[in-house]
């Protein structure tokens, strides 16, 4: 009952005119920042912190957190309309979202994404209220061994992104892992594959790579035909059909669970959540071969997961004081600047702030839904712009986005390189999604593998000493060998070289 009473107290704080206005401004700014490539949620929150100095702690945190989950929806808009992910977490939405836009269903894709984001965000907030304690205690049991097993499970899901060719998907997965090796070795600190370039010491930029692989590669492919002949994405309706809603219920529920659960684990980004939700949908679908052609589940699942993750990632911050992502770290910094230490004591010493902010998550999610559904009509007007103009503007945005990640023209060259690589890989029907999945998980996987082996002094037996790790590794193996079983059972050419590009 205490939880309900505290939550009601929180609502009385969150629903004041000032806090409602701050949640609205944060959601609107977040959506705008999500639309602009290159300005991520962390940078957006960091830029706003100086503006919050004059505010009370509750208002300041409400502004920053509403901006944070606003960015998660904003990134979707450019993914669906332009095939350019505004945020890394929206990259996977390009696959089916943009395909839907080409079929004139951009409005439906954005509506379902807005509804899924609302449900996912609300689900994660309910989890924060009721299940934060036990879940975070479980996550705390994760050492490097269990973490490695968890990452292995994530990476084994590349088989779900394989299309018809498991071999090509595995090759792309390893290619992504190899790219993740560039930069300073996380344990010893020695440079690897840097060619003595300072620009590569911090590793290869994730944003330039995905912009190249998804955005520029698409533009190069379109350039095969004269721009005047380009068929632009069209929009016929905003309202999803009954079938669309029926097809979205399962993905939204699954996405809510996946996003919230992965949001709890420090170090896992919301890109991983949206990718894993996509893989889960493909696995669950009766028609996995149709993914990438405009399946509503390919939009609903990842978009729900990415917003659920954004809210779920606040659970370790509020209950344990652990920031699980760079953006959460920035928000934690804002807490500390206002004299508050996130963690268990926050609920005792500053219950009004803690519960006020939690209640504002519900309010913020409602604002985001109310804000975004009417705005979809405005966003999709972008589609009426002739491709000759739109292509130039998209290119300008991509160059700007790649540059502004670390203020380096080198990142523009990286984007170009991966644009060409992505174009060639598409021509050979290689799926691109596994590269992004392993590029995200690669550094985490290597660090936990090497830490585990250092603990055991080189013995791989350590991975069988933890029951959690054994279960997770067994699942990973199952995911990887399942397509091989399919091959023997059905006699299909699952392992062959033909495949669809994701």
């Amino acid at each position: 009952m205490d939880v309900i009473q505290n939550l009601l107290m929180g609502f009385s704080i969150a629903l004041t005119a000032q806090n409602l206005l701050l949640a609205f401004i944060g959601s609107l700014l977040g959506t705008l920042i999500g639309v602009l490539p290159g300005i991520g949620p962390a940078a957006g929150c960091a830029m706003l912190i100086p503006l919050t100095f004059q505010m009370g702690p509750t208002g300041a945190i409400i502004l920053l957190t509403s901006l944070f989950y606003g960015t998660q929806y904003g990134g979707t808009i450019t993914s669906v309309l332009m095939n350019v992910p505004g945020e890394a977490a929206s990259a996977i939405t390009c696959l089916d979202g943009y395909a839907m836009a080409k079929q004139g269903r951009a409005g439906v894709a954005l509506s379902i994404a807005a509804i899924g984001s609302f449900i996912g965000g609300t689900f994660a907030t309910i989890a924060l209220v009721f299940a934060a304690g036990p879940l975070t205690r479980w996550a705390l049991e994760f050492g490097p061994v269990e973490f490695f097993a968890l990452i292995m499970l994530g990476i084994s899901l590349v088989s779900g992104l394989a299309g018809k060719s498991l071999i090509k998907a595995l090759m792309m997965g390893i290619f992504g892992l190899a790219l993740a090796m560039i930069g300073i070795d996380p344990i010893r600190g020695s440079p690897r594959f840097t060619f003595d370039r300072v620009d590569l010491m911090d590793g290869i930029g994730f944003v330039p790579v995905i912009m190249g692989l998804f955005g520029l590669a698409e533009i190069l492919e379109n350039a095969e035909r004269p721009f005047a002949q380009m068929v632009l994405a069209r929009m016929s309706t905003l309202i999803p059909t009954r079938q669309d809603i029926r097809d979205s219920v399962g993905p939204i529920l699954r996405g809510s669970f996946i996003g919230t659960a992965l949001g709890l684990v420090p170090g896992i980004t919301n890109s991983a959540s949206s990718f894993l939700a996509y893989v889960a949908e493909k696995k669950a679908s009766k028609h996995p071969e149709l993914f990438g052609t405009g399946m509503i589940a390919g939009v609903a699942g990842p978009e729900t997961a990415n917003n659920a993750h954004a809210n779920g990632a606040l659970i370790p911050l509020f209950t344990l004081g652990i920031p699980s992502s760079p953006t959460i770290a920035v928000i934690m910094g804002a807490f500390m600047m206002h004299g508050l230490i996130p963690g268990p004591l926050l609920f005792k010493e500053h219950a009004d702030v803690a519960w006020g902010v939690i209640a504002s998550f519900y309010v913020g999610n409602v604002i985001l839904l109310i804000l975004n559904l009417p705005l979809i009509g405005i966003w999709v007007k972008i589609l009426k712009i002739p491709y000759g103009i739109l292509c130039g503007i998209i290119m300008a945005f991509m160059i700007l986005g790649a540059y502004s990640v670390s203020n380096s023209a080198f990142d523009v060259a990286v984007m170009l390189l991966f644009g060409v690589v992505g174009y060639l890989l598409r021509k050979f029907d290689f799926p691109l999604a596994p590269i992004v999945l392993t590029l995200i998980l690669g550094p985490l996987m290597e660090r936990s593998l090497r830490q585990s082996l250092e603990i055991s002094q080189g013995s791989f037996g350590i991975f069988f000493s933890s029951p959690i790790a054994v279960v997770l590794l067994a699942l990973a193996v199952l995911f990887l060998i399942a397509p091989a079983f399919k091959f023997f059972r059905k006699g299909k050419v699952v392992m062959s070289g033909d495949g669809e590009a994701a």
Partner: protein
Amino acid sequence: MHWKHQIAALCFLAFSAYLMWDSWNNMEYYTPLGPGAGFFPFWLGALLGGLGIVWLVQVSRRSGNTEEGPSLPPRGGIVRILSIIVSVAAVSALMDLLGFQLTMFLFMIFMLMILGRQTIWTTLIIALVCSVGVYHVFGRYLDVQLPAASLAFLARLGL
């Protein structure tokens, strides 16, 4: 026509060979405390090489009629693709020298007028917004500092 796939497979094999060679020769494979910096990339190279060989064997064993491989775009398409690649490379090379505003202005003129076949006024307006407009909005309101020209005479012009 499976030679295109064979060449692609050989490219992957070359990449995997490089990964293994560099991680074996220039990085610590194992240390007294456990795996070194070269351990993980070495095995990635080995795995990629193994998969590359399997793919090479698969595409080589297929009959020539079953798979045509990726087709080359028409001549006009190749020109457009190369134009985009060269122009983005030029942006990357010139941005620190000419500054964001001038580089992006020239790039947009090229993209909109030459490739996009837009009218002069449409081109000029969009090019100005995407170069000068973006430079000032991002610099002033979003705190994203875009590069100014390093050439003195351009810097004096505020570019």
